[in-house]
């Protein structure tokens, strides 16, 4: 089995772009999962974390986390938004590995993601830091 990308990618590696357009049924499922009846009414807008979560799911898949005995901890997260996002609005997420280092057998990686609308305008950013254990020494 090939090494997962998290074990081979170097800083600067680019991910995506991923289509993280969230349709109404998925937005509804997300709101119910997080808060159910207690969640606020977002109207025709998304809870921004929904888009971040969708992009993170794509990154996790591409990085090969949780494969081949790897264990991953989500250590930190940054998010910023320029404006609200409407349900069903086309959004793309493009990621870049901005830091990758191994300390005491733990692999620390940070991936920055930019979110753009249909016009190509950046409407948000995020940064995810993960710690991966269980990698074979290289």
């Amino acid at each position: 089995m090939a090494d997962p990308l998290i074990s081979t990618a170097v800083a600067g590696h680019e991910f995506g772009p991923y289509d993280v357009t969230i349709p109404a049924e998925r937005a509804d499922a997300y709101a119910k999962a997080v808060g159910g009846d207690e969640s606020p009414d977002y109207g025709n807008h998304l809870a921004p974390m929904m888009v971040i979560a969708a992009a993170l799911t794509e990154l996790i898949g591409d990085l090969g986390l949780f494969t081949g005995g790897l264990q991953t901890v989500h250590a930190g997260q940054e998010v910023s938004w320029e404006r609200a996002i409407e349900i069903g609005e086309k959004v793309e997420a493009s990621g870049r590995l901005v830091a990758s280092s191994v300390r005491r057998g733990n692999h620390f990686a940070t991936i920055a993601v930019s979110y753009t609308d249909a016009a190509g305008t950046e409407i948000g950013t995020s940064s995810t830091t993960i710690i991966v254990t269980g990698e074979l020494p290289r």
Partner: protein
Amino acid sequence: MSRGISDRVVGDALSGFERLVTQDRVNAYAEASGDHNPIHLDEAYASTSQFGTRIAHGMLSLALVAEMLAIEFPNTWHSGGKIKVRFTAPIFPGETVTTYGEITSIDVIGDETGGIRIATCTVGCKKPDGTDAVTGRATVPLE
């Protein structure tokens, strides 16, 4: 009497809430987010992890903190809000967590006549034993 968000001052506490994080909620979050990683869903797999059992998604706990901010700042959190957190402890299914926050500073960005007031808040989410599962800082425009 509650104040409007533009009347907020340093020291104001945010209206946190308690929420029970059940395995059903974790399963539903996995379906909605697409994150089906076994450490959240598969007890046999999770029992071999450093945590020894299934844990909730970190992004689910962050979503709770974000929900608190959306309730507290309904008109501005989604337009210009920022948050930076660390996940400091796992949340196990069956735990009731409590979100919290406090305004620690208010700064004017721009000039005094046309500037925007930005609140900086400490935010987080505590486990039943009082330890932080999520801790960090958020900034939100006040108008």
